């Protein structure tokens, strides 16, 4: 075959009229569009704009200025951030630095994309929330602050369940290895047990407080009843509804019954 024939042959290969269906092209384009929309977080565009804006300011400086700014910012971040982060780490719900602690957690979340790491991070945070609750109990803080901490624990627990579920889905799709899944599930189960124990303690402590309160009230009311004749023993009955309310608020947050297997619902 001569050169012309070869070129002609290659040209034919180059122009093979193989095309997919037009309908397929359209439906696949729409499908991909939906998939992308579903996957891209709404805040992403805002975040990108912020980063781009900052970069624009930075790009107008000369190299020396950039170096100084970078150094200055770095030192400030290290000093302020380090001290605040350390202090925030030890904060408990209701403290001034608690919001800093939570902001830093959000920052960590935004840098964690891997399903296993994401689940592990949420479990780290749940450990922290449970420790905060224990600290508040040890300090014998007000019931209000303890209730707040219980709510924080439960909210974080839901996040953990969501991440674990997500990791399981990714595992089913083959994106997460078996070993990674096993690591997460083992820790998740251990953490569930710890959670149950802590909530039991909270419940018991609450019961004790309630008993003390009712005894105090009884004493007060008994002395009152001595003044107001004809109502002996009636006070104890009057105290009940109050106790039930308080019990209910903890009970809702801290009840373990039926919770341990909650994340597994509907997974299979």
């Amino acid at each position, binding site marked *: 075959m001569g050169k012309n024939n070869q070129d002609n042959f290659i040209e034919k290969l180059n122009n093979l*009229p*193989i095309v*997919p269906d037009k309908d397929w092209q359209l439906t696949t*384009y729409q499908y991909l569009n939906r998939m992308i929309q579903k996957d891209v977080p709404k805040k992403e565009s805002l975040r990108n704009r912020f980063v781009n804006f900052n970069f624009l300011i930075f790009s107008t400086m000369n190299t020396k200025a950039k170096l100084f700014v970078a150094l200055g910012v770095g030192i400030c971040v290290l000093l302020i951030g380090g001290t605040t982060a350390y202090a925030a780490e030890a904060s408990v719900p209701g403290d001034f630095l608690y919001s800093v602690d939570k902001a830093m957690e959000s920052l960590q979340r935004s840098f964690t994309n891997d399903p296993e790491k994401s689940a592990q991070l949420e479990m780290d945070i749940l450990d922290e929330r449970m420790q905060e609750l224990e600290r508040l109990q040890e300090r014998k803080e007000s019931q209000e602050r303890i209730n707040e901490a219980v709510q924080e624990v439960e909210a974080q627990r839901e996040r953990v369940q969501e991440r674990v579920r997500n990791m399981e889905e990714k595992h089913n799709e083959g994106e997460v290895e078996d070993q990674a899944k096993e690591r997460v599930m083992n820790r998740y189960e251990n953490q569930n047990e710890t959670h149950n124990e802590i909530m039991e303690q909270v419940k018991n402590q609450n019961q004790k407080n309630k008993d003390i309160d009712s005894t105090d009230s009884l004493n007060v009311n008994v002395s009152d009843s001595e003044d107001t004749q004809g109502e002996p023993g009636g006070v104890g009955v009057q105290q009940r509804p109050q106790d039930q309310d308080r019990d209910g608020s903890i009970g809702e947050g801290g009840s373990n019954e039926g919770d341990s297997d909650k994340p597994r619902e509907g997974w299979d």
Partner: protein
Amino acid sequence: MHPKSKAGLDSGKDLLEAFKKLNTSIFRYIYLRINCQKELAQDLTQEVFEKAWKNREAFDKTKSSLKNWLFIIARNIVIDQYRKAKLHAIPYNEEIHDLAIEQDIDNTLMYEQIIQNLNKLSKEEKELIILRFIEGFSIREISEMIGKKYTATKISIYRALDKLRDTINGKK
């Protein structure tokens, strides 16, 4: 100028643009490699773009173009398909007339002959012909894609081309 990350697809818009531009090429590559099974080729082409989006962080534009990266995904999907379905057993679909549209009759016959004879080549030879002469990749790009040295790839490509031409001319 805005900063551009080295890694990852910048946005979903990039992927949709790539789909508009490359869906036919990727479909054609897969279609020819899996013995002209049109429906399956369409499904697998969609899978290429889905995988690209799911693994978008893995794309490094400093190392390869988006087109190359998508073709590497397509190639892996075809290999997986071969493994899954024992694709040596996938029958060759002879009904290729619906593809060769808008051509005069001589050209149509010529194209059909090329496709039929292409399917007589080995998997590797067929892939080299598709990548070099149908999809227009450079020899360097192909050598990176298939993990062979430049010279070896070049020799294999021209051997495959000779073989295809000879097959069409009835020499083998």
